[in-house]
């Protein structure tokens, strides 16, 4: 049992949890800034970025994919801003134009190029494959300290761990500027906190989190990670720090409960198969949000008083 757990479940469990937390952290600011759909846009344009990187380099090496996806996210943000200004339309519509087009281009590139030899297809891009992250070198709990076995860990785990740490670091380092520009951009400008730059850095952080999590859970479920835990946390408290704490809690809970329910839920119901873990994680995060919407203590807000620090 324990060897099986280590081989098949430990890594997906950790990866799912880290992906949730890495996305939920910047997601807090997206939700407060009414930019939740930036997460939507960015996670869609990850696909063409990855496909383009594959077509250019011919490999599925992680670095190339990450660079390609991050570049695509930056291109998308620039294009969205361009369309919004030239067309004088609301940002939502500008986003809709750009991210659907880039996603369509990604789909077309996949279908047109010969990617059959590698693990790159649209379904995988949409909902990932958490279950494939197995750790065969693990034999027992001792493997956790065995360097040979550890070297065999799926690289996604280390990548997500690094990205999660980076997200925490970004939030701490840019804390003052993030808070100022989120709650009062005009004041932030006047005290030199550079809200535009911070807004751009936030998008880059979102892109990095989306790219890292994308590989494990797929692009659309990444959106759930960005929005659901912070949104639910927003309904639990009026203060920013507790909100972030709640969102991390919700994110970790979604990751763990989602994976367990997907792997063992059908067994408990008497079925012999498991269901998509990524999909189940999104579902759980949605259920948590639904509960928060119905009974969260601060679900209605108090008019003028928003969250404070």
């Amino acid at each position, binding site marked *: 049992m324990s060897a099986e757990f280590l081989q098949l479940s430990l890594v997906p469990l950790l990866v799912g949890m880290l992906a949730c937390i890495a996305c939920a952290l910047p997601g807090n600011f997206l939700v407060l800034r009414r930019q939740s759909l930036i997460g939507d846009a960015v996670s869609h344009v990850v696909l063409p970025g990855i496909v383009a990187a594959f077509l250019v380099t011919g490999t599925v090496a992680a670095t190339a994919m990450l660079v390609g996806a991050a570049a695509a996210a930056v291109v998308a943000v620039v294009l969205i801003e361009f369309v919004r200004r030239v067309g004088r339309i609301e940002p939502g519509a500008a986003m809709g134009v750009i991210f659907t087009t880039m996603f369509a281009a990604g789909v077309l590139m996949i279908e047109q190029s010969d990617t059959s030899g590698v693990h790159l297809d649209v*379904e995988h891009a*949409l909902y990932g494959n958490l279950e494939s992250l197995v750790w065969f070198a693990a034999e027992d709990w001792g493997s956790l300290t065995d360097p040979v076995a550890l070297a065999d860990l799926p690289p996604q785990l280390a990548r997500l761990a690094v990205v999660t740490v980076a997200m925490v670091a970004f939030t701490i380092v840019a804390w003052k500027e993030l808070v100022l520009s989120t709650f009062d951009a005009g004041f932030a400008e006047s005290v030199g906190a550079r809200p535009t730059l911070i807004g751009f850095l936030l998008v880059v952080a979102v892109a990095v989190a989306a790219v890292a999590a994308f590989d494990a859970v797929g692009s*659309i479920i990444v959106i759930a990670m960005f929005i659901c835990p912070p949104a639910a946390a927003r309904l639990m408290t009026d203060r920013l720090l507790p909100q972030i704490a709640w969102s991390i809690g919700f994110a970790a809970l979604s990751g763990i409960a989602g994976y367990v329910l997907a792997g063992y839920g059908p067994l408990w119901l008497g079925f012999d198969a498991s269901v998509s873990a990524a999909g189940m994680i999104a579902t759980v995060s949605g259920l948590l949000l639904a509960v928060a919407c119905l009974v969260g203590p601060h679900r209605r807000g108090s008019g003028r008083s928003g969250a404070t620090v």
Partner: protein
Amino acid sequence: METFLAALMLSAGYNTAVVSIGAGFLGAAAGAVGAFVLLRKRSLVSDAVGHATLPGLAAAFIVMALVFGDGRILPGLLAGAAISAALGLFAVDWITHNTRLHEDAAIGAVLSVFFGFGIVLLTVIQSLDTGRQAGIAGYLLGSTAGMLRSEAETIAVAAFAVALAVFILRRPFTLVAFDPEYAAVRGVNVRRTDLLLMAILLAVTVIGLKVAGLVLIVALTIIPPVAARFWTDRAPHMVMIAAVLGAASGFVGTSLSASAANLPTGAVIVLAAFALFVVSLLVSPVRGVVAGGLERMRLSRKVHERQGLLSLARGEPIYDGLTLRVLRRAGHIRADGVATLQGRAAAAAAQREEALWSLYRREHPQSAAVSPALELNPIAEVLPPETVAALDRALPRVTATAGQPS
């Protein structure tokens, strides 16, 4: 290429023709509805609607596979999709109105959670070993290849019906989208019209699932209206142009996708719509990039001509290359920079104009500040004759005190 032309001419087979025509109607309905939704600033609601169809689609498939042994019955799938999309729409509305969360968070949460749950149901379908599950993947990204004749006909007829419904309802929709308060005064039930608009958006999404796919159908309701916005500032025209652009994207995209392998229908339709968008962005005479650039160039030439003439009148030397070019082309100066007879007359006229305008600026500073670029035009064309006459009378005295003989 030949197959593409054949498909455009509706001679590449009955199914392709029916689907292309159906996609044309669908595009028209989507473009028009999208224009109203864009005016209401709710464009991305359709993204939530599109993704929210997946669980209903999958659940309908499971039920039909268990009951009939075949899950791929189109009307049943579409009914399931419509039910879950309506739930998603209701959830977006409920969250926006009953919690402190804003619509963007509600849209993102609904689309991702519904989609996630749909993926869970899809993996359930994979574990069923019945129901011919291969058909379901086509709904994610749209696929018209291998469509049954009855399916193609159903989609075409339903798309036509929705396009017709949008056409019939265009007046209340325009009123409500453009100015809800005025619409209410005119006796239009705003709430019910909004609901109808959302119902039609939902119908477009559901009918378009098989053609454009649930991930990309949102593009068909956003890109044509945004492109239409470049051609006009008037709401009724915008709706019409969006419908035409949408119809063109749907028809051309579907034909193109049928003409070769590996051209997924949904993606090709979206790219066709985007191509029309780029054309609109560049060449539209109203606010296109090219028209805007030309307008700026014209303005800059006018400024240079005026400043050049004023310099001529004052006898100052001109160094700026563009100014010299503009003056030379207008025949105001010779190639060596000396003013022609016509140039001297124009310079005197420009100086008088400038004097009148500067007097006007001093006497009516507020009116003058409204639109400074107007001052590049002859004052008699812009201001009423009495004002110009009054300025004219005041002019000699002013110029005399300023020590500038006119």
